[in-house]
């Protein structure tokens, strides 16, 4: 057996190495994740300043406000997905990795979700308290954000892959991706609303789950072909 085969790292090892490197990078660039969370809390606390502090009204708009802020924060952190790799040439090596590109994109989105999605989901209930949401509404809010942010990362991956290297790219990504994230916003905010009005958020969260599965199946392939197009 020629030595070339002996050093062959299995597909699993490739995936783990990529995930490990990305999480190591997230750890080394901790300040980026903190800025996303700070942005999230600033945007949320702007609303009471804007619309007034009447508690009943705040309770009504609480879920929607936190969700819109979560959407914008996820949008803010999208460039970290591919743009830094594109700039320093790592993305080319990623595309030349023997493992399927859709899997590579999926792992990048997983790393991005771990770095931004989970912190947003943990932070959301804290900010929900500012709006006087009761405990089960906060629970549904956090669960919704936890399930919604992977969808934002996956659709964001398609957006950033399409606009790699373009001038004014970040603004363009928001223009491309926000309309596609509207169902996530409606279902997420609707879940909190339903939990508050006692209807129970089961329907909304299960639909959000269905949307997550659908996006998990489709988006990596779309992002992979978008990457190939951009690097052509």
């Amino acid at each position, binding site marked *: 057996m*020629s*030595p*070339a085969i002996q*050093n*062959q*790292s299995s597909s699993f*090892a*490739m995936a783990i*190495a*990529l995930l*490990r*490197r990305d999480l*190591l*990078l997230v750890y*080394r*660039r901790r300040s980026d994740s903190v800025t996303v969370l700070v942005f999230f809390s600033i945007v949320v606390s702007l609303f009471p300043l804007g619309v007034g502090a009447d508690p009943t009204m705040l309770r009504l708009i609480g879920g929607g406000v936190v969700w819109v802020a979560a959407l914008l924060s996820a949008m803010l952190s999208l460039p970290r997905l591919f743009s830094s790799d594109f700039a*320093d*040439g*790592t993305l*080319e*090596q*990623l*595309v*030349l*990795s*023997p*493992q*399927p590109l859709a899997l590579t994109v999926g792992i990048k989105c997983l790393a991005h979700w771990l770095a931004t999605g989970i912190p947003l989901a943990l932070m959301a209930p804290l900010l929900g308290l500012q709006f006087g949401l009761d405990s089960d509404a906060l629970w549904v809010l956090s669960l919704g954000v936890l399930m919604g942010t992977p969808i934002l990362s996956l659709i964001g991956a398609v957006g950033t892959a399409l606009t790699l290297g373009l001038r004014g790219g970040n603004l363009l990504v928001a223009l491309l991706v926000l309309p596609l994230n509207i169902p996530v916003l409606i279902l997420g905010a609707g879940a909190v609303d339903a939990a508050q009005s006692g209807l129970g958020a089961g329907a909304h969260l299960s639909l959000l789950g269905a949307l997550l599965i659908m996006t998990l199946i489709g988006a990596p392939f779309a992002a992979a072909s978008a990457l190939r197009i951009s*690097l*052509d």
Partner: protein
Amino acid sequence: MPKGTDLLQLNKLACVKGERLLFSGLSCEIPSGSLVRVTGANGAGKTSLLRMIAGLSEPAAGEIVWKSQNTRLSRSEFLQDILYLGHASAIKDELLPAENLMANCTIQGEAFSAPEVHAVLEELGMGERLDVESLSLSAGQRRRIALARVWLTHRPLWLLDEPFNALDVKSVEQLCLQISYHVGEGGICLYTTHQPVDIVSNRQLTIPLDAFCQPAKAQSDPSVLNGLIL
């Protein structure tokens, strides 16, 4: 080390960038053990050709055959046989040199143990810089981290895009020796460079891209223009 039967065939390759027809009708056979230099003016498509062979960009026409299989069909097998180094050295600023190298190799499908990696880095004169984040390394040092894979890999086909950039004289020598060793063992190396280098090899080839780029012919024969660009 690479087997003696590997053969790289380029059949009537054509490359279009935006609306410009860079080259067309590029055909040649590269048997194992050959050292191929791609020459041409700036913008003649040297980098495009290497990227096209690696599979990063799609040829406007023609095909690339490796071990008698079209590389676009047997993509993952082909990718396990090539080592592509582009202009950018794919180094993450926040990672240590060894971390960068280990991650890049494993992601490319070739895992190496830490001692092997450290040994190669020391050999390339990076010994005392191992615990420093790549951010504070010079361009030449970063280039050496990227090139360290050349000493580690067992892969037969190398595609090196201007590997000698930003390297000092000693590193250039080391790289030339390593390439001639690789080619001597039956490997194939396609490379581009702007500085004169002497790499010892018994089968030297050059691909002069300017010869395959005839704007007049493309212009007079609209079908070429139509088929490829419009």
